[in-house]
């Protein structure tokens, strides 16, 4: 809103920073913002436009609108006295993020915590009975065990492979190509990935196999297997492979960016001192990118704990492949047992506490929260 700013500056000059003007602006600017955005929203909601035009207007509004919101509100805060500016400005920066999070995630989560202490229909409190059930009910326990498998095998493989590939790619002669290939599965939707891996795990009796894995097994003289439903709980590993295939690209791209920031002279100096590449990797590179390793590990563990689509697409949770998120979905939307469903969701929150603790400790070490 540029025209707004020029008038504002004019006023400021005339009134000489009068408190009245500041107070006026601090009411007017938020009000103008609210009115403007509501207006555009109603316009977009109720007007029939050419689809292309609609898309462009919508994109412009979504992008420019948010920036204008920050810029105009910040302009108001800048008019305040130094003390008040310092007090209010941080909340201006954090505020929109926190407001959105509170509405969309925090309140639903608190509601879930309350529901986890209530019975199946959320009509009366049952204390910790649901939590006891989580550790005795076979279905719920299986979901927890599988999630543990996912984190143990899936997350660690993603991180180790991602780092390995990033380091290798950095030294190879086809870095861009290799990174693109490993990253590519990230661009594939879960529905498509499900189809891809069905071509690999596909099972039919007999010698003619359409699934790649069974074709290999048969050509080596073995019996074809129904990979995703056979020997439980190891069928979970075949699903975890899909996650590894899809998510290693994430770790790889981030690690690769971090590796590029390792100062060249540091590596050069170590090489001059005669350090081997493996020693350099563990003594220089790993410590240098330790913060990145932590954040990637956190992200991937969190992602793995929430895993949903892969299981839903591949087995629908049958054959003991249920994980917490799918079991939550089942309890909540199919069995209508809000108590069990909520408790499982909260179990995820509890499971992530060690990860958070570790993050905070790291932050304190960096002096972030001194």
């Amino acid at each position, binding site marked *: 809103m540029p025209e707004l700013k020029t008038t504002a500056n004019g006023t400021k000059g005339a009134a000489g920073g009068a408190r009245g003007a500041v107070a006026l602006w601090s009411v007017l600017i938020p009000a103008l913002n609210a009115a403007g955005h509501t207006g555009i929203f109603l316009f*977009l909601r109720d007007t029939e436009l050419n689809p292309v035009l609609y*898309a462009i207007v919508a*994109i412009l509004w*979504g*992008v420019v609108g*948010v920036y204008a919101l920050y810029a105009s509100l910040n302009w108001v805060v800048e008019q305040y006295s130094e003390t008040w500016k310092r007090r209010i400005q*941080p*909340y201006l*920066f*954090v505020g*929109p*993020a926190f407001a*959105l*999070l509170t*509405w*969309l995630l*925090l*309140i*639903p989560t608190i509601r879930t915590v309350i529901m986890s202490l209530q019975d199946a229909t959320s009509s009366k409190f049952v204390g910790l009975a649901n939590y006891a059930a989580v550790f005795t009910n076979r279905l719920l326990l299986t979901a927890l065990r599988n999630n543990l498998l996912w984190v143990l095998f899936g997350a660690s493989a993603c991180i180790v492979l991602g780092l390995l590939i990033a380091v*290798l*790619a950095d*030294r*190879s002669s086809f*870095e*861009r*190509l290799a990174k*693109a290939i*490993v990253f*590519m599965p990230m*661009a594939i939707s*879960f*529905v*498509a990935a499900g189809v*891809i891996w069905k*071509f690999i795990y596909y099972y039919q009796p007999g010698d*003619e*196999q*359409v699934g790649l894995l069974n074709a290999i097994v048969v050509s080596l003289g073995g019996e074809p297997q129904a990979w995703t439903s056979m020997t439980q709980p190891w069928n979970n590993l075949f699903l975890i492979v899909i996650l590894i*295939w899809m998510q290693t690209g994430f770790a790889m*791209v981030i690690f690769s*960016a971090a590796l*590029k*920031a390792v100062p*060249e002279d540091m590596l*050069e100096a170590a*090489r001059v001192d005669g350090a081997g*590449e493996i020693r350099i990797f563990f003594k220089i590179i790993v410590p240098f990118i330790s*913060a990145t390793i932590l*954040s990637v590990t956190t992200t991937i563990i969190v992602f793995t704990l*929430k895993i*949903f689509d892969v299981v839903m697409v591949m087995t629908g949770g049958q054959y003991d492949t249920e994980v*917490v*998120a799918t079991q*939550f*979905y089942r309890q909540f939307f199919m069995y209508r047992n809000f108590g069990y469903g909520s408790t499982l*969701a909260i179990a995820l929150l509890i499971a*992530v506490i060690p990860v*958070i603790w570790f993050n905070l400790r790291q932050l304190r070490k*960096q002096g*972030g929260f001194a």
Partner: protein
Amino acid sequence: MRKSKGRDGRRRGRKGSKTVVNLVLGIICLLWLIPTLGLFVSSFRPATEILKTGWWTVLPHREYVAKEQLQLSKDTDLRQPIEVNGTTYTDEQLREGVKTEDGTELIWENRRARTIDVRELGWRMSTEFTLDNYAGVLTGKEYDIPKPDGTVSKEKGSNLNQAFLNTLTVAIPSTIIPILIATFAAYAFAWMKFPLRKTLFVIVIMLLVVPLQVALIPILKDYTSLGLNGTFLGVWIAHAGFGLPLATYFMYSYISQLPKDLFESAFMDGASNFTIFTKLILPLAVPSIASISIFQFLWVWNDYLVSLVFIGSQPDVQVLSMRIANLVGSRGNDWHLLTASAFVSMLMPLAVFFGLQRYFVRGLLGGSVKG
């Protein structure tokens, strides 16, 4: 790339290790590529072939192919050993195919008519390719619609253009809004002092792990009362909310690591927080912003659940993933269409990745701090 030249020249014996690196990486890349390759090849194969033979049969391979046919006498007793060319076989053997001494294979061609195929091992390559799958996806699936007078007319479903446009309209703001908001918040968490800072940050990290299914029903209720259901604004807000914890955490871990002197010198010059943020932090954080943008974009682009819940499945607002799910059909037997549409849907994310890949370059931060 520029980095490798000087480094390699100075160190002898690195040629050999580079070959090993290339080899290992090559094998990993091959393993990574095979699943997608399977899909890619399958997307060009006729629908009937996809589930009959493996996609790798397009490569030269050896398989048994019928060379000639033998006609046994019609009254051959199948319960007795059957004599073919001087050797006797059981009915069981002939049903599964039996190898003869000269390397051919005998198998019933038609058991009732008593004809036997003599098959020979030879190099074969399945060369049946078609563009029909892509044509079907791009121009819409054909539906048979029975008319009241008994005839059947073919009607085409809508094509992908509208869905593509809708997905862009959903995905671009849903990527930029949360990342802009998150970067503001990350800056405040990292470099501004205020009460409750730590508490708020812990809450953000805790929210990382909340499965979004938890939030769907409460948000849907709010949206209904606000009239946001079925609007793009509603989807943007939802995607922004679900993407915010990760984006904030991610941007924080980058911004908090910027050198302290950078801010001190800027404050000395009398710059305000907002100026520092827009003039200094945003440009410096470009590589980070690029990476997190890619991930948010991919997530939104491939999302199915959020769009389904908040904008529904009407053709005018439908996104790509929903179209693809519809193509699969309720019986899930349109695999040939799914293979092709999976590839169409991958084009945009890949373009974004290659477009932003140049931001992941060495020393972008180093240069600006020194200067």
